[in-house]
């Protein structure tokens, strides 16, 4: 299922949390060779994980992490502005209607459907909270995957070559995109809304503790 969890809520889901941070190590350190910091538990975490971001996570039927993306509002501190303003002027965007999307990660055995599900989750955030754009950082491989799932960002700046290539880009969603993204993710509109409501819906907290 698609889960929407803030940083402080991850601790209620220890297996999901641990497998997510380990999958991030596999993707960003081992496969892409990025200079990321990995702690003693094997978790790839950075200072933006400490800002209590919102994570959209695909949880596999066995409870483990299948893929995730991390969201923060651009009016506060963002990774894009702190680390990528030299490759794209767009890194300086500040608006309550623009959020940044970073650490888009797929578990080693995830397919493009999982990417589609995460994109769907991002689209639901836009729909639910009047967000109009996501500002993202991603590697070259992800650009191909985004294209496959019908949600290509507009690439506005890049650095490096080959697998070291990192790009900054912008997503802008429309309702037609939502239908397409739903189709590629292979879920109904109702199911997606149900997942969203599980976290953001009425009495979701009381339901959880009941």
């Amino acid at each position, binding site marked *: 299922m698609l889960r929407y969890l803030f940083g402080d809520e991850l601790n209620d889901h220890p297996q999901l949390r641990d497998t997510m941070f380990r999958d991030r190590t596999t993707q960003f350190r081992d496969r892409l060779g990025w200079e990321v910091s990995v702690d003693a538990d094997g978790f790839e975490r950075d200072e933006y994980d400490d800002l209590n971001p919102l994570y959209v996570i695909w949880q596999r039927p066995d409870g483990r992490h299948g893929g995730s993306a991390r969201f923060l509002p651009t*009016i506060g501190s963002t990774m894009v502005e702190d680390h990528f303003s030299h490759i794209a002027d767009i890194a300086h965007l*500040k608006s*309550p209607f623009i959020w940044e999307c970073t650490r888009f990660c797929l578990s080693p055995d995830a397919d493009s459907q999982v990417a589609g599900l995460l994109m769907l989750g991002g689209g639901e955030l836009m729909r*639910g909270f009047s967000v*109009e754009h996501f*500002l993202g950082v991603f590697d070259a491989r992800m650009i191909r995957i985004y294209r496959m799932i019908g949600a290509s960002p507009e690439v506005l700046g890049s650095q490096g070559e080959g697998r070291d290539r990192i790009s900054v880009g*912008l997503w802008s969603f429309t309702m037609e995109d939502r239908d397409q993204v739903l189709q590629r993710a292979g879920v109904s509109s109702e199911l997606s809304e149900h997942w969203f409501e599980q976290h953001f819906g009425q009495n979701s907290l*009381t339901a959880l503790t009941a």
Partner: protein
Amino acid sequence: MPQKLNSLLEELEQATSLDDLQRHITALRDLYRVDHIVYHWVSSEGEQYGCGTYSREWARIYVERDYLRIDPVVIGCFQRFHPVDWKRLDWSSKAARAFQKEALEHGVGNQGYSIPIRGPNGQFALFTVSTQCSDDEWETFTEKHRRELILVANVFNQKGLEFEETRLPEASKSLSPREVDALTFLAMGYSRAQVADTLSISEHTLRAYIESARFKLNALNTTHAVARAMSQGLIVIGATAPNALGGWPGRLPERRAS
């Protein structure tokens, strides 16, 4: 409504004291025809600051009894950054239910919509609209005005930050070169399509630049943003027009050194 809201925001921009903010938030409450609007800043040390239309009596009780610690709105919105309907909060504890009952007795609405704002350096504030009405009416209201309210909430917070003595100078609020370009071409009367074409970006991306410039300039709409950028000397039309007309599309006017 947008025109009235616009002039209200313009006045808000001129506010120099908490008294001014109080006057504007009251006018805003009247404009939206709701019972209450409140801007509430909570520092990491638990200090409170703000303005709003709740009764003095309720504000006094709230501080005196330290309701900050049990208010489900503050607890539920702290460390969040998405707008929250009060119905989605956890009112199940005995303390929360007693608090809610007392709030209602002091004229707080049964419905509420709070926009948490996470500013620079861990700053946290809440902008809340509350009124007495049915669930359906409330849903219609919040759906209709959500975007505006998020914007207004952020304008109030800009002012709050401005009044905060210990705040650090905010370099990040300056316009980026591309934002200056976008506003300059718009000021010269180019259509959005022409501006996007001239800057070699899509209209979606142009929209994001304009959105960002609007936020940085505290402007409700694009016309407002252009006017404000001109009056603050951030864009200069006279100097750039001859260049642009000579070279476009594809060539940018010379920019003032910033």
